[in-house]
């Protein structure tokens, strides 16, 4: 790719309960850029983020983040290393017994010894960045889905991470909420110099903000490159995914016995 890689996946193989999720994924994620990882539902996009974050270990292959091999880290080292990663979960994953303010303050209270007035200022700045300074006293149950995700975003940037991973940030969002998140992801990346990894199946939104994208299907990378390169990619499977064609290399029908057999029609059904 010719760019400085922040994350490198080398021949990553991963299985879960006898089911092969990745059969040799090799991927470079450039430093300081937004990389979109796209693919049909159930292809293991979230699993890929968990592998990068060290929550799962690959069966074989290596995952290198900022020069450090993640599977080789011991538990304690891994927890320390994660302080430079932020992750936005699909559900937001806010702590339901803490207010918005306390949710954002949580990582600082655990990892730093900052005085209370400084924590207060930083939390308000982070909430200001996502437009929710006024919601600081609300509880998570009082937030809309979009606000919930923005608070989670403020929390994941609380410690000024180098890497931020977004798990399906646009899923279930109305057009305004989606627009807000697109703007926030783009602005945060440029203002904080973050490396952003975005997992999504919202093709248009993802391609509109990413510098680099890759499509995963059937346990491997089927297409990678800039958004322009992907749009002109020769693979039929890539084109089917990008344009949402109902039938193609990924068939409309789930594999089944011959229709004639199921319907009990002698001579077959065309």
């Amino acid at each position, binding site marked *: 790719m010719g760019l400085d890689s922040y994350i490198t996946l080398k021949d990553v193989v991963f299985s879960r309960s006898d089911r092969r999720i990745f059969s040799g994924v090799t991927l470079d994620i450039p430093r300081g850029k937004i990389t979109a990882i796209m693919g049909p539902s159930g292809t293991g996009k979230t699993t890929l983020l968990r592998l990068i*974050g060290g929550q799962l270990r690959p069966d074989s292959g290596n995952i290198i983040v900022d020069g450090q091999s993640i599977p080789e880290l011991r538990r304690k080292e891994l927890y320390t290393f*994660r302080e430079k990663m932020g992750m936005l979960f699909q559900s937001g994953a806010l702590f339901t017994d803490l207010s918005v303010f306390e949710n954002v303050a949580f990582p600082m209270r*655990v990892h730093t010894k900052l005085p209370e007035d400084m924590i207060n200022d930083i939390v308000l700045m982070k909430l200001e960045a996502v437009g929710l300074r006024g919601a600081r006293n609300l509880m998570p149950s009082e937030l809309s889905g979009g606000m919930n995700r923005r608070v989670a975003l403020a929390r994941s940037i609380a410690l000024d991470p180098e890497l931020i991973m977004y798990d399906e940030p646009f899923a279930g969002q109305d057009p305004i909420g989606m627009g807000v998140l697109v703007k926030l992801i783009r602005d945060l990346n440029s203002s904080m110099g973050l490396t952003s990894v975005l997992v999504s199946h919202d093709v248009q939104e993802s391609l509109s903000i990413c510098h680099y994208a890759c499509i995963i299907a059937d346990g491997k990378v089927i297409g990678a490159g800039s958004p322009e390169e992907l749009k002109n990619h020769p693979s039929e499977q890539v084109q089917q995914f990008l344009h949402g064609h109902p039938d193609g290399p990924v068939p409309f029908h789930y594999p089944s016995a011959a229709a004639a057999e199921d319907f009990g029609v002698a001579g077959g059904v065309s």
Partner: protein
Amino acid sequence: MIDRIASLGRSGADVVISIGRAGRFLAGVLSGVPRPVTGFPLLMKQLYSVGVLSLAIIVVSGLFIGMVLGLQGYTILSDFGSEAAIGQMIALTLVRELGPVVTALLFAGRAGSALTAEIGLMKATEQLSSMEMMGVDPLRRVIAPRLWAGFIAMPILAIIFSMVGIWGGMLVGVEWLGVFEGSYWGNMQASVDFWDDVVNGIIKSVVFGFVCAWIAVYQGYDCVPTSAGISSATTKTVVYSSLAVLGLDFVLTAVMFGNF
């Protein structure tokens, strides 16, 4: 036939694997140096929710069980003209057996199920995962304070249960049925030994508290993160805790009072 044997073997292997996982989980929770500054407020919060909030059910149950013991004891003992021994009977029954066992069963139903459901829901809503990704170990932050709180709260609750039960027995035996108050307390004082009865009862409740809290937090942490999974884990907590308490009670009683 071969299939049955294979399935029996698989079930046996599953049980052993599950116990091994629970053991590794416990080692993970208990390993590491406790941090008093951050850990103490978390422990206090959990002591409140598993201990203080369980008080109502423990006190009410203790009162009624003491009162029932008073009634039954009086009926049986008066046949032999020895109703004066009712205080001794109630105290020994409560301190040795009913206090630790019934408290543990109530604790599993009230606090254990709540712990499992809470942790399971935290897992299902990715709160535990998000904690891990923030570099915070949920075993230390979420699980350890809950385990310790159960361990500390259980013996205290069992003592309160026995005290309220003895008082309830007195209400029925002395105030209602007219047993002489002096013999109620006097017989009790003469026959209940601090080390043999009270301390052994407390040791039982310490063991039960540890086992109930361990089962509850493990089931929550290990549950399938769906609504059906949490429901099944909560049920397992109550069933496994109850069986473990009753089984362990037999073993402990045999060791403590068996006189082999």
